[in-house]
């Protein structure tokens, strides 16, 4: 135990060889979250509407104000303009087309997602008018949302970035420091020292675990301060993230040992961290996207981790279809990668052939 403790201290001292790398790896996801939470998708959209001159046009404007969430924000912020050109986005003009009063929406060079959002809002506004005209014949949708309020997207986004923070810190620092040992020649010390390789690897991984948890704590605190939403159990959060950090540490160490060069190992850590984040439910729960996406997403360790974190941020609501399966999956990945890291260590560090 004493030897392990000394090894751990030595591992932590490596912070001094690359303090900036440590700080960047730990803080980058938090910085990204702060910046992205400012621009995060919000349900309220600006819609340019040509100043109406008719009564039906004024009715339309009144209907636009009705479109929104009964337990959240309005969905349209009308911007009245005089020019009927769509500009870079869109414009709605009330015209007579074929003797029928029509709301014509002209789009600029925009993408299908923006068209969808603008079309849906226009339809919802026109439906308000139609329902008024239909009176008692108009259909009412009685809403029963899953949660008592619509939760801002920044909450989910931040929660799904916590695994990214954990992964990035562990994989990047692990890969970088391991590669640095080869570049600076200190790897020879490991080869010559009479300590068990398992103990050395355990110290390295433990140190990465603690570093990654520091990154998690910083992002978690920022998320809470920005959104006011805190996990119902902080300890559970740390426990759930532990297997992911172990997986990331192993991937980082393997990259460092295989490439023996800081830049490619950084590249591997970066590419895997962002790919895992995006595919691993980073923008929404995997079940909410296409079936193909969901299948692939479930292979990524981030997805089960996010599903396990979900109840702690969302009033205890479960979303994992197979909670036990997710736990087994994470355990399987952790054990397999731990074995691989030992094998790679033997082949790349302890082997007589270099």
């Amino acid at each position, binding site marked *: 135990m004493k030897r392990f403790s000394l090894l751990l201290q030595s591992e932590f001292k490596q912070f001094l060889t690359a303090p900036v790398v440590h700080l960047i790896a730990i803080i980058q996801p938090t910085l990204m979250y702060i910046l992205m939470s400012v621009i995060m998708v919000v349900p309220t959209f600006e819609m340019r509407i040509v100043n109406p001159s008719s009564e039906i046009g004024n009715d339309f404007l009144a209907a636009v104000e009705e479109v929104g969430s009964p337990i959240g924000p309005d969905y349209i912020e009308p911007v009245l303009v005089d020019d009927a050109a769509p500009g870079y986005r869109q414009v709605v003009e009330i015209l007579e087309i074929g003797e029928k009063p029509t709301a014509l929406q002209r789009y600029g060079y925009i993408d299908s997602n923006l068209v969808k959002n603008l079309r849906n809002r226009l339809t919802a506004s026109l439906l308000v008018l139609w329902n008024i005209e239909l009176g008692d014949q108009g259909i009412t949708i009685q809403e029963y949302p899953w949660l008592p309020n619509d939760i801002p997207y920044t909450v989910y986004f931040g929660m799904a970035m916590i695994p990214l923070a954990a992964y990035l810190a562990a994989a990047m620092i692990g890969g970088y420091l391991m590669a640095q040992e080869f570049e600076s020649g200190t790897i020879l010390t490991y080869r010559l020292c009479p300590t068990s390789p398992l103990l050395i690897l355990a110290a390295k991984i433990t140190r990465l675990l603690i570093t990654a948890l520091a990154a998690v704590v910083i992002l978690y605190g920022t998320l809470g301060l920005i959104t006011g939403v805190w996990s119902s159990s902080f300890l559970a959060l740390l426990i759930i993230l532990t297997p992911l950090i172990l997986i990331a540490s192993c991937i980082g160490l393997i990259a460092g040992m295989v490439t023996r060069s800081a830049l490619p190992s950084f590249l591997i850590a970066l590419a895997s961290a962002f790919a895992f984040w995006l595919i691993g439910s980073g923008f929404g729960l995997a079940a909410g996207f296409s079936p193909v*996406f969901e299948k692939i997403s479930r292979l990524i360790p981030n997805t089960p981790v996010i599903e396990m974190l979900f109840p702690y941020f969302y009033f205890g609501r479960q979303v994992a279809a197979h909670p036990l399966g997710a736990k087994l999956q994470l355990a399987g990945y952790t054990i397999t990668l731990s074995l691989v890291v030992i094998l790679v260590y033997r082949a790349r560090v302890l082997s007589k052939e270099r």
Partner: protein
Amino acid sequence: MHRLWILFKTEFNVWRHDPITAMGGIIPCLFILIAFALLFGGRLSFPIAVINNDRGDYGNLLIETFPEVISPLDNQPYYEVKPLSENQAWKAFEEYRIEGIWIIPEDFSERITSGKNPSIDMHFMNYNDDRAKNHRIYSAEILWAFYQEIGLSAPPLEMAEQYPLPEMVDWVSIISIGIVLLSVTLGGIFNMFILTYKAQMGKITLEMGLSPRSLAWVLVPKTVLATFFGLVTGTIFLVIIRVWLGFWPGGNIGAVWLIAGLVAVFWIQVALTFGLIAKNYMAGAIGSVLGAMIVFFIGGGLSMVRAHKDAVTWIAWLFPNTYAVDPIRDLVLFNTWPADFYPVLLKLLGFAVISVLLGSLFSVRKLRKLS
């Protein structure tokens, strides 16, 4: 000139010895493109269950309406009605295997016919407000189509649309151009790293610092080569997009190279300067790469800057990517000449010139100091 050529060849040989890192502009970008294509490129219909208790025909007619209402996002219906029994539906909803449940009451048809406030219960997922918003506004699309289907009186205001192209440009394509620019940026940064990191590791920076000649002899070939390879990575990415998504700038490729090249020059200088300031070159490298990634996300990588100007944070305007990304989209996706091409070009030139001046100043001072 001969000296410059020798330096070019030396730098090129350094580059050849680290091909994996030279792929720095491609590998992360390809992963990101694949991830976004998987996220937003597939079928995005909301899976729901419909519990139809209606004694009349309108309930069935409503169910038949769901597949007929098509979203422009993916040319698929907004909703995919899953054939589930009531118990299965509730279980699936609670486990979030479906997005919602619509319950049609037994007197639905009767109330429509007699005009007695017909209603539908909509249970839906609102774990994020964007998804909740989609449920609310998608349901309006369904009702709009349903009213027309059952022949109610015409709406007081009809709806019409005009899109400037015969075919709509999809969201993944918009993101892919953001990634092309990221690819050029990362390509430039990574290639600058290869060229300078090796020099630092081999202590050649000492020789550079002692050189009696201007350090421009060393910095110009590095900058030119890094920009060139940044553009090569970006072009490889454009070819990937041509094959995958079918977009190509055609005769406008020169303009794309010009815009993207100026962005690359900016980032190459940032990488060089930070690398030298940070003493530990890798720290600067990692900082600039992750900085470029952040700028991708906040500076129009995921959506058009012009169409969401109000959502662009002021920090994003401090980087050239935010100005460059939409004109490149015009050239590649919409095949139109950007209306703001020359103003944007001037801004990008300004960014490039300032970064070259400041970058050279810092780098030369640092290199001379190291010696």
